[in-house]
Structure formats: C-alpha cells, structure tokens
C-alpha cells in the first residue's frame, strides 16, 4: 500500500467536483486516480486495483453510474473493491437512493453532492478498513 492510506479511484465527469474530492482526500493522506467517464474508469479499476471507488451516478445526462456499479460488482477483478456512489439525482427524482433497500443497488455506500468532508472521510476510511479486514 506504500505510504498512502489507500488508493482512491474517482469516476466523475465534473472536473470541479473531482478537484474538491482530490483536495480533501489527498490532504487526508490518500492517493487519487481520476477517470472522467465510467468506461475508462472501469479499465483503470481493472488495471490498478484501487482500494475504493467513488462513482458518480450521472454521466452525459444519463444514470450510467448504476449500470457501471453493477459491472464493478460482477467483474472478477473488481467485485471486492468497495464502491461509494455519489449522487445528486436522489433529490432531483425525489427518489431515495440511500441503502434502505440494499438489493436495489449493489453499491456499498452512498454519498450526496455536495459532499461533507468529515462524512466522506469517515465512509471511505470505514469501507477500506472493512474490505482489508475481510481478506
């Protein structure tokens, strides 16, 4: 794992949001990789095996994030990597994406835009620890 607390793969097409996540996570000691679309994000996850994936829901005005979350969870190389989905769609659709129904979506956790710093760090920390403990 090197010096870093862990490697985080951020998959989001909003450069400002990615920048903010980067500042927060790097200051806390994480190493960050970025992909601006889910397809290259998937490839990056297979290649570099990050400790956790932060995945946006909306890409090109489509909720592609859900589909890719399932792909991560079904992929042989990626299924053990925790995935946190980041969304602001919940408010827009009026639908609750929080894990009330864990079968609905395979993500390990959810976080809303704009992110709360401590909340984000808590969740990332907890999931990375849980995943490494399971091994």
């Amino acid at each position, binding site marked *: 794992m090197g010096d870093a607390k862990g490697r985080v793969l951020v998959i989001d097409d909003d450069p400002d949001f990615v920048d903010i996540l980067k*500042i927060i996570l790097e200051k806390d000691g994480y190493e960050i990789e970025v992909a601006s*679309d889910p397809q290259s994000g998937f490839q990056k996850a297979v290649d570099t095996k990050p400790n956790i994936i932060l995945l946006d829901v909306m890409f090109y*005005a489509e909720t592609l994030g859900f589909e890719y979350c399932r792909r991560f969870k079904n992929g042989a190389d990626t299924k053990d990597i925790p995935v946190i989905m980041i969304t602001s769609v919940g408010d827009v659709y009026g639908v609750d994406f929080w894990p009330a129904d864990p079968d609905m979506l395979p993500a390990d956790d959810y976080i809303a835009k704009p992110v709360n710093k401590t909340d984000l760090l808590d969740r990332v920390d907890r999931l990375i620890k849980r995943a490494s403990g399971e091994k």
Partner: protein
Amino acid sequence: MDDFPIRILVVDDEKTIRDGLKIVLSEEKYEVEGAGDGREGYEKARAGEFDIALIDLKMPVMSGMDLIQKINEEEIELLPVVITGYASISSAVQAMKAGAYDYLAKPFTPDEILYVVNRAVETVRLKRSRLKLIEEREMSLKDLESEKGRLKTVLESIGDGIIVTDSAGNIVLANPAVYEMFLREGRKDIPDSIKNKIESMRQRIENTSDESFSRLVEEVGLEDGSDSVLAISCSPVISGRGDLIGYVNSIYDITHQKEIDRARMNFIMTVTHELKAPIGAIQGYLDLVLDGTLDDDPDKVREVIGRSRNSASSLLTMIQNLLSAIRKHSGLRKSEFEQVQLAEIGKQAVDLLRVRADEVKVEIEFDAAGDLQTIEADKSDMNDLLNNLLSNAVKYNKPGGKVVVSMALVNDDYVEIKCADTGVGIPSEAVPHLFDEFFRVRGEATRNVPGTGLGLFIVKNIVDSHGGKIDVSSKPGEGTEFRVILPVRRKARENG
C-alpha cells in the same frame, strides 16, 4: 276565465238589426262587429278573427248561404249562425247542410238570440280548450323529438369517446369517436384493455358504499405498442326514481398531455441538475477554504476561488440563456421569414468572434461560394445559428487552432453550411446528447469553458423550424465538423 274575448260578426243588411244585436251582445261582454252585406261579411270573416258569425240569409251582393258555403270551403275558423226572416224548414235545412251551426228565425227577442249565441259561445270555448290541449301535447312531443335529436347530434359530435353500459356492464352505446379511436387501424372491436378498465371501474362504483359517489377517473394505456394514454371517466347513471340504470364512460386521449408532463419533468430535472453542479462546486470550494483544509496552501486558495468565480459566471450565463430560451419557447418571439443574405450574416458572425478568437490564438477562415444567393429564413434565427456554431468552434478549440466556415449551394433547393474546428472534439458517447437541452460535454478538456448547454439545442431548434437538417462528425482531440442543410425556399408546411 277565458283570456280571449269572444268576437261576434253580425252580417245583416238591416242596420237596425246590426245595431240592436250590438247592444244586446255587448252587454254580455262579447265584442261585436257588423257587416252590411255578404261580401263585406266574407272579407271581415277572412281577415278578422271572429268566433261566431250571425248571418242573414237574404242580402245583396253575396247571399248568406253563399257566405256560409265560402266559410266552410275555406275552412275559416268561426261558427256561422243563421238569422233569417224567411223562416222555413227547407232554408234552415239547407243552411245547416251548408255548414251553419244554428238557426234562428226573425224576429227574435234578446233572450232568444242570447240563448243561441251563448250555446255557440259554449261550443267555441270547448273547441278552444280542446285545441289548446292538443297544441300543448304537440308542443311537448315536438320538444322531445328535438331534444332527442339534439342529444344524438351532441353525442355524435363529441370528440371524446362515449361508451354507455347498462347496470350489468354490457355496452349499449358507443359514439362515433369511440370507433374513430379504436376501430381504425384495423382494430375490430374496442380493445380488451379498455373493456376491462371500464368493467373494473363499474365494479368499484357498484361496490362502493358511498351513495354520493359520482365519478371515477383512471388512466389506461392501449397496450398496442403505442405510447397512447387514455383517461376514462366513469359515472353512474341514476334514473328519476333513484335506480342505477347504467354507466357513462367518457374516454379522452391524454397522450399529448402526458408527453408535455414528461418533457416538463425532464426539463426541471436537467435544469436542477445543471444549476446544482456549479453551485455545488462553489460551495465545495468555499468549504475547503473555510474549514482550514487549504490553510497551508495560499496558492491553492487563490486557485479554488478563481474556479468558484468561473462557476458563478457560468451559472449566470446559464440563467440568462435559460431566460432567452424560455422567451423563444413561449412564443414571445415568432420567426419571420424573409429573403436573407446568409453570406452577410456569416461574415458578421465571424467579425464578432474575431477578437475572442485572437485572444485564444484561433484562426477563423470564412468562405462563401460566389453563387450563393439569398435564402428564405428568419434573420435573427440565422444570426443565432451561426453565432452559436462559431462560438462553440472557437471556445472548444486549442491555441493555434483553426475554424473553417463555409457556405455553398448543394443544388437549386438547398444550401449547406459547414463549420469545422481543430478543437478538443466530442467523445462518441456524448454525440447522441449533443442537441439535448442543457447538455454539456464534461471533462478535463472543457472544464474551464463556460457554457449553458443551450447553444446547440437552440441551433437544432432553428434548423428544425426551417425544415433543415444538422449532423456532426467529430474525433476527440482532433476536431469537430457541424454540417447544416437549409432549404433555399421555405417549405409550405412550415407555418412559422
């Protein structure tokens, strides 16, 4: 009791008889008028509305007998009563045969004449009230007839489908709109989905304990692969005695309303999403500055504030564009077609962008074919079209890049506008969404480019409203080319 007074015509050539009768009969509140001979009697009988005529048989010009015959022949509505000095059984019989109602021999006492007249008046009154009854009956029948006809006409001309069922749910009536709705396109019967829905609504109304229940409205799809959505409103029909005798279902197409609802929802969703993104960025950056995360990095603080500033201004442009798009959508500005010099507008658009292009070191090349004449279009639309295409080509370019704009006739009917750049290109995943409202290609390459996501949407709308076509080819990292085809003459079906 009787609203109308009894009017009596006295036809006698003897003035004393006429005057005498007038006095006697006026006392009984009858209206009396005299005529001096048969001819005058006939004229008056025909013109005025008399109930009874007292007619002397022996008169100059036209005899009483002739008058009675004429009255009968012409079906003049009055009772002729004969008064004559030539009292004989034969003349009486003759007069009665000719149609006289009664007969009185001269000379007569006032009581005698009143007796005869009163009998006649009684008959007139009876006849009147019988006529009135018949008239009333005929009136109500006529009303009913026309009411039925009215209902039928109304039912047949209603645009909504009307299906009436009896209390057991059997369809007893369907108006032409129903057949139009369901039976064209080869359908042989009202679709089962509709029948089932009507039946389930009927059962629900039947089973409800609420007596005041008056209407149930539900939506149903046609289940034929189309997007058609119908609304069915089911109301029980209660007879005058309070019995439930059936149900009226009115069916109307709400597909269009549903589409509008969806579009509106989509609009609100995308606007919310697009407006939230820059605000979220500003908020996120400000949090980082406020919570001390960046305390040891003043350069980064400046950078994030700069980015926040960018987000704020792109938010502002977005709102401004949104307002102008709404203004256009809401029909506050209508397209006005005229002969437009496309090359002229292209040149102006290029000139307008030259300064900005110079700043980012992008070269613009403009080429309008010599044979390009005017086209029939909305001038301000053409301005918006070219400005949007060109400003995109400059905005999403690279330093040292190039924009090539060209316009030329394809044939006699169409003109082609091409706008090619050597910019960042468009990822293939983004191409299908390019002309969507508020869509923006997000990524490292476009992060600092302010935009609203309305430009190409407006371009597409303009092209559509002019009956043209637009397509795009792009290679990420190499450049993009937009191709617009517009008709030289306005197509007939476009109405502005």
